[in-house]
């Protein structure tokens, strides 16, 4: 019957009395099957991350313990792309156990020099659009926890093929005020009657759709350039090492 609520699955299930998590690979199989069907589209088939963060971390930011993880699986994380799922108590325990197991996998080895990568980050112009270590401009995503949230493979893809990694809801638009007068920007928010953009200077712009000559959507477009040809392989590895080490404040 599910009906209520935009972010669905608001399930106030009691999760305190769970059985001990299964640990053998046979026990983990049911959880893996559910994971591959329902979680992998965002978190990657092996939990390496994708649209959603990597799960190859020893401590999940939103789920420090099993109770929190079960609650998160059932209710989602408000304000993020993580929905809740219709899982029974048993299924929740199965998925939890599988997800916990992903956290014990060794992280991919980092070959670059992070200290040198920090310099590459500065000289390549990254702070023009991103914040890391408290500095920079927030036109693009905040990178303060990039290493904790994203796998090395994913970060590499962002640098070399950024259009393939655009998050859910990311959209560049071109608002045509009148012929010849346009504002290109990153959509901050949109409803049926208005749209709010962040323009190239990082300034918010508020527009009523009825007053626009045209509103051109540019799916797949991003201001983020590819660094595949802009940086040497060595610089790229060092930059990746630097990003992988960004883990926010403890």
């Amino acid at each position: 019957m599910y009906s209520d609520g935009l972010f669905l699955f608001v399930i106030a299930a009691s999760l305190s009395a769970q059985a001990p998590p299964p640990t053998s690979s046979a026990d983990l199989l049911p959880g893996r099957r559910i994971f591959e069907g329902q979680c992998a589209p965002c978190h990657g088939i092996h939990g390496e991350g994708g649209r959603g963060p990597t799960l190859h971390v020893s401590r999940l930011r939103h789920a420090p313990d099993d109770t929190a993880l079960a609650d998160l699986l059932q209710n989602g994380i408000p304000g993020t792309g993580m929905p809740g799922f219709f899982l029974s108590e048993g299924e929740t325990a199965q998925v939890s156990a599988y997800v916990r197991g992903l956290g014990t996998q060794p992280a991919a080895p980092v070959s670059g020099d992070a200290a040198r990568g920090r310099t590459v980050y500065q000289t390549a112009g990254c702070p023009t659009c991103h914040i890391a270590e408290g500095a920079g401009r927030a036109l693009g995503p905040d990178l303060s926890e990039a290493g904790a949230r994203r796998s090395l493979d994913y970060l590499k893809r962002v640098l070399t093929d950024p259009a393939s990694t655009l998050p859910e809801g990311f959209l560049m638009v071109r608002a045509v005020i009148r012929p010849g007068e346009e504002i290109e920007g990153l959509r901050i928010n949109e409803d049926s009657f208005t749209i709010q953009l962040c323009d190239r200077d990082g300034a918010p712009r508020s527009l009523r759709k009825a007053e626009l000559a045209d509103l051109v959507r540019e799916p797949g477009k991003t201001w983020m350039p590819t660094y595949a040809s802009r940086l040497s392989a060595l610089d790229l590895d060092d930059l990746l090492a630097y990003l992988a080490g960004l883990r926010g404040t403890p």
Partner: protein
Amino acid sequence: MRQMAAGIAFLLVTSIQNAAQVPYSRIVNAPQEPGSWLTYSGNYSAHRYSPLAQITPANVNRLRVLWMYQMNDPNTVETTPLIADGVMYATEPPSVVTALDLRTGRPLWTWQRALPRDLKTIGFGRVNRGVALLDGTVYVGTLDAHLVALDAHSGALRWDTTVADYKIGHSITGAPLAIEGKIITGISGGEAGIRGFLDAYDAKTGRRLWRFWTIPSPGERGHETWRGDAWKTGGGPTWVTGSYDPELRLVYWGTGNPGPDWNGDGRSGDNLYTCSLLALRAEDGALQWHFQFTPHDDHDWDATEIPVLFEDRRNGRARKLVAMANRNAFYYVLDRTTGEFLVGAPYAKQTWANGLDEKGRPKLLPNISPTAEGTLVYPSLQGAANWFSPSFDPVHNVLFAAVREMGSYYYKTDPEYRPGMMFTGGGERALDGDAAYGAVRALDAITGETKWSFRLQSPPWAGVMATAGGLVFGGSNEGNFFALDAASGTPLWDFQTGGTIEANPVSFLMDGKQCVAVAAGHAIVVFALP
């Protein structure tokens, strides 16, 4: 001066003390009393249409907020307030009733149920959609599955009846329906493996008068559509308010999904009377006829949408019809005397049926059932429509519907029934974001043909209300409360309420002036012309 103030105070007090003497005859004649809103859908035919015409396309852009009432509970507000004799009766989450002074929005009384600490709502939020009024009493269902009668003047408890055991997943979120001497209530629990029913209670005493089980037991007609013991956990909840024909004395009520939701392997057969419209005799709850929209549903497409009653006056006679814009994306028209299927046409994107046969049964496309890997089907689990209300304009025979355009990957898992736990056997991953959108659509009520469509940014959770002034009011997830031209769908006015709108609008008179109200975020907002 003081004497005058006292006189005014006396008049106000008198007005409030006379509040809510709402005999059955007033509800039957609700269309002749457009200043009030006496039952969940505005009238027994579930039109959610206001005959008021002070607010028009020419002046709607001058609407202003008259007052707001703020609630404290963090859960979603889905209430449809009722209005009678200077008082607004609204519910608040989780199971609260508040009477508000219609002139100011100031509370007159509040009744709150202390919910059990071990209460779980399985498959839905801690919400309530409204009350019923009859004579001097306010009726409300609670999350722990009680039906409660309150004195309309004070909120004092008159009676409290246990409808079902909340510990195994029963709950009440929908507004009751008050008819002559009886209070009809449905039940939630389709994700908990309940056996659904519809109940009627004596309005004076709270004694149960009849119960219609939506899942037939062995020996009853329809039981053959179940396998083994699957009927015992077969679902078929009745969680949204139905409609009523006082002439035929039939109650029309939709039923929800079979359990488990997304794995039908253990319940082969049509699974009557799930995903159906029931016509029950008000007198004794006997089944007059049924129509099943989605036999053997495995997508959670409850048929609990509002059944709208209207007449086809072509050919020189008035044929009694019932329409439903169903969650499965088809719009249906049936003869409401006999249940005969007349019209069925998609009103939103659907990828599961190659139309309907001459009896209205869907001609299923292959490979639409949930799988472990996920099966992409339109509409999504939440459906093209859901609990939020459509509106019917009886002058132009147009049905206005808030429509969800979204697909889902449906997953199947192995269901395990444990009393009081989720029993669903799968789930979904909705194609939300920019791939999904919403609309308000105007349908020719007799043919289902779309006359116009106004696009919404995202699939809505708010109902619509048309008015004789030529407007259709609606709400959006992004907080817009808006008015469209009923003739063309052209947007004429919008107001950012600052909170998601997941409720149905109503309209009424306050001191002779037309008002429009809707719940938005955690508030009720009332609008009027200056």
